[in-house]
């Protein structure tokens, strides 16, 4: 680097080359980002080949020039300088004349990690700006292995000044210096030091160890509570010399520790430094106050590296820190210390911690961690507002608030852009009309695929960089062009400096389409993507290097197939590049994609096929096919198929056409299916070959930041697609509670993610989606006594069990067992039959009789007449009862004295009671060992399944029943029908049935969707619906694709009758479009509300025109209330429970807490 400073030569010639400097005998090693750049030993006296300065130059940065060898400004150096250099360059012995030079005392002292200079001033110290190269460098170390780029040499730019209050004198006597004298800052030459590090000493030739070995601190290690190492033996001596070259003092250790690094690495020069105050007569150890002005050398800068190619790569190579890395880290620390000392703060971008120095920073981290002993896996409970307990997890799990923070940026910045984003109309082959926001989304997606930047100006700075402004140099007589704030950029993580704006990288084609995780999709993403397929339909050209790359890949994947692939490729090569689109979706959504794509396309323009099931065709031909005609090929497949194809592929000799084809575009629907990067599915997805990649998901971050990584890896979004990089820069800092991690995530999301929410507004202020209202009610139900008993016995057993385990501390080991108990409890709430055997004669499935248990009244009458002879009067009563059935609909139940809701007739006496009352009474009798009998006449025994229910339906209902024709009418009036009570209901079933009846009264052709987690309960529901003569359709995970599709399409079919769809929460919670219904029943509660809401959004989404009524059924005083509590606490034990068995021996205390909630006392 250059060290000569002319009064006016504040120029950086970013392009000037080190070599030329060397030639000028100012040798400097400039560490470039990656490693240390090392120059061959310089020839000090070589003729100056390109002195990079000229007096008439203004202070300018030629930030963009990067040729290294531009030979301009070859003005010969002033001789004075050269001569000085020569003089200084003689040999190290020449300095020995300095009296009482104290080599020993502090030179070897341990460099402390103290956090900064004790005295610091940003006030500029006016000083002679000039002449002497305060520093001369000789490059003495051998070239290091990593030679990245020798930083361009040039002039230095003023960075700031600071005061050092406790520099100390090494000499005794007068006349060395006086206040106001210019001083020079010098380092020893590391000549005799066998360090591999290229350390460039100052021009003076003190031969001292250039540096030592710092204890290696990897990034991860720093974040752990490793105390700062104080055992470094590095030489950090920084000498102060006067104009005559005599050393008179040194910088104190806490300053020299980093100043020495900066000098060694050739990052800065100290020019115009002065003595502010000193005793007239020096003595050894006397305090000196000096002012140091710092100039950063042009060579310290280089164009930003934002990819994994650069320094970060070295950084995240944890475990072993190479010397290069060490250098980098020291450089980074030193720079941070410097910025701190001169009070330089970033204008924007990455935040430098106040204590700047990363090693101090690690102190700070340690402190933070110390406040939370145990580090990562901590959670705390906060009481907010109304006293509700909110749990904030402090570990990898993201709390809601953290997620909010992550997305906040998107609201504040990106989405502002989104509002005003241009719209784009789809081509004519797309037959549907897009809404405004969909057109915007199309524009965005189109521009992302075509690589244009217009849609959302991506002017984001790279997340790891921050911007600084050069301070104005306080010198008189200088035209200070830096006054307009030339910025420079610093990466506080790698220590890189740059003059070029480090753009957040955006090379991938594709992105993430997200919808709010809690309101969820229903935004017509299928349509948007269909529009995209139509819009960007042209095949991409075959890249010249692409084929070979493909081949390499294929060869790698399946050796024995290489020949064939090549042949294949050759035939295709002259044709077009990839043009087909592959859509990967959950199995349940395949047909929906198919339908929607067809629906949105003009006939013949889109060739959609579902690649699923047994008859999967060979896909090899699709690229050929697609060029035959004008249609676009779209293949839809499922994650399951993909994963199994992939494992087939991995088997030796296996092959799978889906991985052979190079797709124009791959779309992952519900992309969080592959959030675990090690899962088979995820690996299969990564193996797909595609030009453009899209991930669609409602929850890009499910509960860990690393969920995002998997998506980025699929998108091949460098550098974040590299797991170690992601982990080093996001996960680990996040665990260490560094807010930077969140910022980085925000920037990443900003660049790749388009997020749409139902409640977002467009630029005219209207909601982008107008949805009808959604009314959610929670029905709190109460057990019948019988159910209560069953529930309590199970609960008590479980609680006893838990208490015992808890007392012994064995909960963790028996986690699965406890969860099984909880599962049983949850089922007991739904229906006793789910947890008890049904050997008591009451079958949950109707046997023998018609499926709805209907009984013909005439048959009943005949039965009674036959018995006439025996008991005339009773029979007469019975007959009158039957005859009056349709009128006596306000009869009072003899047991509850209320009007009978569901009258039940007790055969053969035909007395009536409420169904509930009589069942409860019969149970009491049985319990007491008595014969179950009629409460009115004591006739017995009465069996529960003999009871006859009297059902009255409103007149409106009759048309449908007649039209279906397969149901028996109980009486000629068609108002009343009877059915056998051979089905045991439950509180929840009854509640459901009653709600459905009520709805049917209001809307004879209603459509309702019923969700439950338990398929066994779905079966019971279907029986109950049968008995209500309601048409039902079932959708659960056990059904194959065909059946599922049939169920959905039948349910959607427009018929004049009420229909109920019963859906398993897990299978149907996502993706389905069920807007034809507007009633939703949630039979049980899931551990987290988000899942439930997503299920509800099957109905409450675009296309819904009516108010949506949602009803949750909760049984009071049961586990369900506690599940709701846990829902609120927002940490579900299931997270641990279902995450894997490896946790079994060390249970998170939080899970234990949750269990205690379950088994706690109210």
């Amino acid at each position: 680097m250059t060290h000569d400073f002319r009064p006016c030569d504040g120029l950086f010639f970013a392009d000037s080359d080190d070599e030329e400097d060397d030639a000028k005998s100012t040798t400097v090693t400039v560490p470039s980002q990656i490693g240390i750049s090392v120059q061959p030993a310089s020839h000090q006296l070589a003729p100056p080949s390109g002195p990079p300065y000229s007096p008439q130059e203004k202070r300018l940065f030629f930030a963009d020039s990067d040729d290294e060898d531009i030979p301009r400004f070859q003005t010969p150096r002033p001789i004075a300088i050269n001569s000085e250099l020569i003089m200084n360059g003689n040999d190290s012995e020449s300095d020995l004349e300095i009296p009482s030079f104290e080599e020993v005392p502090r030179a070897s002292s341990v460099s402390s990690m103290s956090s900064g200079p004790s005295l610091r001033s940003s006030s500029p110290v006016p000083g002679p700006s000039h002449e002497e190269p305060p520093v001369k460098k000789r490059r003495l170390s051998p070239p290091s292995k990593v030679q990245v780029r020798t930083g361009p040499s040039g002039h230095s730019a003023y960075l700031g000044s600071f005061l050092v209050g406790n520099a100390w004198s090494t000499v005794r006597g007068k006349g060395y210096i006086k206040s106001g004298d210019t001083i020079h800052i010098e380092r020893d030459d590391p000549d005799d030091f066998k360090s591999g590090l290229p350390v460039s000493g100052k021009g003076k030739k003190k031969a001292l160890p250039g540096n030592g070995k710092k204890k290696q601190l990897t990034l991860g290690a720093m974040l752990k509570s490793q105390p700062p190492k104080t055992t470094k033996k590095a030489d950090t001596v920084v000498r102060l010399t006067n104009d005559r070259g005599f050393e008179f003092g040194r910088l104190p250790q806490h300053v020299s520790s980093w100043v020495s690094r900066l000098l060694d690495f050739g990052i800065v020069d100290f020019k115009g430094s002065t003595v502010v105050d000193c005793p007239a007569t020096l003595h050894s150890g006397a305090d000196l106050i000096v002012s140091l002005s710092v100039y950063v050398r042009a060579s310290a800068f280089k164009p930003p590296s934002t990819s994994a190619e650069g320094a970060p790569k070295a950084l995240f190579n944890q475990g072993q820190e190479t010397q290069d890395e060490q250098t980098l880290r020291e450089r980074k620390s030193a720079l941070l210390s410097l910025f701190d000392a001169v009070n330089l703060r970033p204008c924007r971008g990455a935040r430098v911690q106040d204590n700047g120095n990363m090693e101090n920073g690690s102190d700070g981290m340690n402190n933070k961690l110390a406040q939370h002993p145990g580090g990562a896996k901590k959670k705390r409970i906060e009481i907010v507002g109304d006293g509700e307990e909110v749990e904030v997890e402090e570990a990898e799990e993201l709390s809601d608030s953290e997620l909010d923070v992550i997305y906040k940026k998107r609201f504040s910045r990106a989405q502002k852009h989104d509002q005003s984003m241009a719209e784009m109309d789809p081509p004519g082959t797309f037959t549907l009309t897009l809404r405004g926001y969909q057109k915007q989304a199309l524009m965005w997606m189109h521009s992302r695929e075509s690589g244009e930047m217009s849609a959302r100006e991506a002017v984001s700075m790279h997340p790891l960089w921050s911007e600084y402004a050069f301070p104005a140099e306080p010198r008189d007589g200088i035209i200070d062009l830096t006054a307009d704030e030339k910025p420079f950029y610093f990466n506080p993580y790698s220590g890189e400096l740059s003059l070029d704006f480090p753009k957040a990288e955006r090379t991938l084609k594709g992105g993430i389409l997200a919808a709010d995780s809690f309101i969820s999709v229903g935004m017509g993403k299928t349509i948007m993507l269909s529009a995209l397929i139509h819009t960007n339909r042209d095949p991409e050209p075959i890249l010249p290097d692409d084929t070979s790359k493909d081949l390499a890949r294929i060869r790698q994947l399946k050796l024995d197939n290489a020949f064939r692939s090549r042949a294949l490729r050759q035939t295709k090569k002259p044709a077009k590049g990839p043009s087909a689109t592959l859509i990967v979706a959950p199995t349940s959504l395949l047909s929906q994609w198919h339908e929607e794509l067809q629906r949105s396309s003009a006939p013949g323009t889109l060739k959609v096929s579902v690649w699923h099931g047994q008859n999967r065709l060979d896909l090899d031909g699709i690229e050929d096919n697609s060029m035959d005609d004008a249609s676009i090929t779209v293949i839809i497949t499922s994650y399951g198929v993909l994963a199994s194809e992939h494992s087939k592929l991995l088997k030796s000799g296996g092959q799978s056409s889906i991985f052979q084809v190079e797709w124009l575009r791959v779309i992952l629907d519900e992309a969080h299916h592959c959030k675990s990067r090690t899962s088979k599915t995820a690996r299969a997805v990564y193996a797909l070959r595609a030009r453009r990649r899209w991930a669609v998901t409602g929850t890009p971050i499910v509960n860990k930041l690393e969920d995002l990584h998997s998506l980025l890896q699929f998108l091949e979004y460098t550098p974040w697609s590299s797991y170690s990089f992601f982990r080093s820069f996001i996960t680990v800092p996040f665990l260490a509670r560094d807010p930077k991690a969140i910022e980085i995530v925000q920037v990443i999301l900003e660049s790749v993610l388009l997020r749409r929410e139902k409640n977002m507004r467009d630029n005219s202020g209207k909601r982008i989606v107008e949805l009808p209202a959604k009314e959610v009610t929670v029905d709190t139900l109460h057990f019948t006594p019988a159910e209560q008993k069953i529930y309590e016995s199970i609960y008590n057993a479980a609680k006893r069990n838990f208490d015992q385990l808890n007392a012994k501390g064995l909960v963790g080991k028996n986690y699965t067992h406890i969860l099984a108990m909880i599962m049983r409890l949850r089922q007991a709430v739904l229906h006793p039959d789910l947890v008890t055997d049904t050997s008591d004669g009451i079958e949950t499935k109707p046997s023998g009789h018609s499926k709805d248990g209907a009984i013909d009244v005439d048959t009943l009458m005949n039965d009674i007449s036959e018995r006439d002879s025996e008991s005339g009067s009773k029979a007469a009563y019975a007959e009158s009862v039957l005859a009056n059935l349709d009128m006596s609909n306000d009869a009072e139940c003899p047991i509850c004295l209320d009007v009978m809701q569901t009258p039940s007739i007790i055969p053969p006496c035909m007395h009536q009671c409420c169904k509930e009352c009589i069942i409860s009474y019969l149970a009491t009798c049985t319990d007491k060992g008595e014969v179950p009998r009629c409460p009115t006449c004591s006739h017995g025994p009465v069996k529960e399944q003999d009871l006859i229910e009297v059902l009255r339906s409103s007149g409106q209902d009759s048309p449908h029943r007649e039209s279906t024709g397969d149901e028996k009418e109980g009486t000629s009036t068609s108002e009343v029908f009877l059915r056998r009570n051979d089905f045991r209901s439950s509180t929840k079933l009854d509640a459901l049935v009653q709600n459905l009846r009520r709805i049917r009264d209001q809307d004879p052709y209603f459509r309702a969707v019923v969700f439950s987690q338990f398929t066994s309960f779905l079966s019971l529901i279907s029986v109950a619906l049968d008995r209500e003569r309601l048409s039902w359709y079932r959708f659960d995970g056990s059904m194959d694709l065909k059946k599922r599709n049939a169920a959905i399409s039948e349910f959607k079919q427009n018929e004049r009758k009420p229909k109920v769809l019963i859906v398993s929460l897990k299978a149907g919670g996502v993706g389905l479009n069920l807007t034809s219904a507007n009633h939703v029943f949630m039979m049980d509660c899931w551990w987290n509300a988000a899942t439930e809401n997503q299920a509800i959004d099957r109905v409450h989404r675009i296309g819904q025109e009516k108010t949506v009524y949602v009803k949750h059924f909760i049984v009071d005083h049961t586990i369900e209330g506690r599940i709701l509590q846990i829902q609120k606490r927002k940490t579900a034990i299931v997270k641990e429970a279902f995450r894997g068995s490896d946790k079994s021996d060390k249970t998170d205390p939080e899970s234990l807490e949750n269990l205690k909630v379950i088994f706690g006392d109210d």
Partner: protein
Amino acid sequence: MALPKRIIKETERLVADPAPGITAAPHEDNLRYFDVTIQGPDGSPFQQGVFHLELFLPEEYPMSPPKVRFLTKIYHPNIDKLGRICLDILKDKWSPALQIRTVLLSIQALLSAPNPDDPLATDVAKHYKEDEKDAQRVSREWTEKYASK
């Protein structure tokens, strides 16, 4: 636990439309506990007497019968010294279709028609069996002595 609707309904009806010769009023602090009076039926040895009883509706009511007891001393073969009543509907013949009113009417009927064959107070029953006239005399005396208004 909240009072079942049935009990409320029964109480309302007892108050609004009392059975002849019978009163029943719930305690203010315990609506399941009733103060009951039954007038001795005409033509019985208990004529002119007003008998106090207590009636309690257990938690299981109406699945279990109410508990009823005479507080007034009475000389009756089916009612013992402690006032306990031997009546089938208060035991195994209970049916939830029965109510407070029907129970009290049954008790009133029991006063008219003692059943010494199913005795609770064995000495009284023996007395009734051996010398009904004398036993009725004692009953009248007791009524006068303990159950006069």
